[in-house]
């Protein structure tokens, strides 16, 4: 065997080893989800007696789903999560893009540079530091907890700084000033220039912010659990927690509830996987 053939053979072997390691790691990574899927179609007794069997001794059953859905009030919590996530995300994008525009283009104004510095500094504050005063101010003084709108505005307020930071970078590097000057000469006001020229050009950043924030809002537990204590307003994570608290022994129902809680975002991921991975990457690398 010549030197080159040897090297090629070694490369091929390394390649095969890597694929095997990847497949093993992949199985390990998705194993918990597979276990949930296997057990969701079994009766409670079958899960307890053998959680690893593909099909339970009493056969395949679908009965866990309707029962879990009814007890969790699934469609209602799904609707709540959807409304809160969509409105918060849209609101975050609008207010942050607008704020970053005035900050970038008027960086010399003391207000703008001060506000931006404050926003960047605030990104290190963990939620734990703000939760007690939030409950104290909005529950104790204003009494506005238990409204979807309160949660939506809070979600938006928390994500404004990060989103403004990202839009700031995008406007700063990607939007040429000449474009805005041309719009000004054509008779656009600043307001029109923003909406007709700048905002449409921010599309890639809008997508990134939308993906990152929508996922964060959809999965958030601590803030919603403090704001929404009324059962009718529960979002999916709170409803899952409450459900587990009540039915933890009814393991078949728990499996169905967990699967239902994951399903919406997994289905979305199936279709938008490329965009989600790209959005999270660019958000993480910039952030």
């Amino acid at each position, binding site marked *: 065997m010549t030197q080159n053939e040897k090297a090629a053979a070694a490369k091929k072997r390394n390649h095969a080893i890597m694929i095997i390691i990847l497949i093993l790691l992949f199985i390990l990574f998705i194993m918990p989800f597979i276990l949930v899927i296997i057990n969701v179609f079994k009766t409670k007794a079958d899960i307890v007696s053998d959680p690893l069997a593909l099909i339970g001794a009493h056969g395949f059953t679908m009965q866990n789903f309707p029962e879990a859905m009814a007890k969790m009030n699934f469609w209602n919590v799904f609707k709540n999560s959807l409304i809160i996530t969509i409105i918060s995300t849209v609101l975050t994008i609008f207010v942050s893009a607008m704020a970053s525009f005035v900050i970038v283009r008027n960086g010399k104004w003391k207000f703008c540079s001060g506000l931006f510095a404050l926003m960047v500094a605030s990104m290190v504050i963990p939620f734990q530091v703000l939760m007690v005063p939030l409950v104290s101010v909005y529950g104790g003084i204003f009494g506005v907890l238990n409204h979807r709108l309160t949660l939506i505005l809070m979600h938006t307020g928390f994500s404004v700084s990060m989103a403004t930071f990202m839009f700031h970078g995008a406007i700063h590097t990607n939007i040429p000033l000449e474009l805005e000057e041309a719009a000004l000469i054509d008779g656009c006001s600043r307001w029109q220039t923003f909406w007709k020229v700048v905002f449409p050009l921010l599309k890639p950043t809008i997508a990134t912010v939308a993906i990152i924030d929508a996922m964060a809002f959809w999965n958030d537990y601590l803030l919603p659990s403090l704001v929404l204590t009324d059962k009718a307003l529960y979002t999916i*994570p709170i409803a899952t927690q409450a459900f587990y608290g009540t039915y933890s022994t009814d393991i078949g129902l728990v499996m169905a509830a967990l699967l239902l809680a994951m399903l919406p975002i997994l289905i979305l991921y199936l279709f938008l996987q490329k965009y989600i991975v790209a959005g999270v990457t660019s958000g993480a690398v910039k952030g």
Partner: protein
Amino acid sequence: MNRNTFSYKLRQILMFAGPGTILFFAVVVVPFVYGLYLTFTSWDGVSAHKPFVGFANYAAAFSDGAYWVALGRTAIYSIFAVVFINILAFALAYLVTSGVKGQNFFRAGFFVPNLIGGIVLGYIWKFVFNRAYVAIASAITGGMAISPLSTTGGAMFCLIFVSVWQYAGYMMLIYVAGFMSVSDSLKEAAMIDGCTPSQAMRNVTIPLMRSSFVQCIFLSITRCFVVYDVNLSLTKGEPFNTSVLAAMHVYNQAFTYKNYGLGQAEALILFIVCAAVGITQVMIGKRGEVEA
């Protein structure tokens, strides 16, 4: 049009930055400042009266043994979790950028845990540890195995394990971006100069990826220090409160025991510790950064 008048500036700022600034102040800045004030009161969460107590809450926080135990436990948890998250994430990133078939599929797959909230992930793993693990362990040993979640060290191990599994896919994406930013020509040049692939990795690729490391370690430290969801759903602090992490202690102190002032003071200390560790790490990391 004069663009330098006060009224023009005010109009521009209100029009564009107004809504964002109001919301930002309403939920971040004002509560932060108000939180500082709360640490000097002994508010019970109900009454309108908030008696001023001076530094009593800080004194109580410093003598709250359970809090320092929880903080120490969080530090140990964070050290293990951060190290393993980054080792695994780096290895995954290496594997999915090495040009094997289906690497995008694997990338997408390893990211899946990050799509799902910590509450749901915790309950899924609780099932895995309590049922599936017990079934396998019992079959192997032939006796009745017990769940690792019901043993003292086991619960902490499970928390670390689940956190590594949860965050590795996310950090992997950052390392993937890091790998992609190192140009192939540099590696090739090193190989022509006689480097083996592993030497090229150690002496060329890794030093150039330093910023990815700094960023991933910063993100994993700041996340691990304040983890709450998974702690709540996976162990709930059990057995016997031996897996209560700092964030859970703060939550219980404020909302379960209604010591709002004390809880807020402890939250503030947690924030300061977390920020100090994170910033130190970034400063050390940035010092040795190299440009290609």
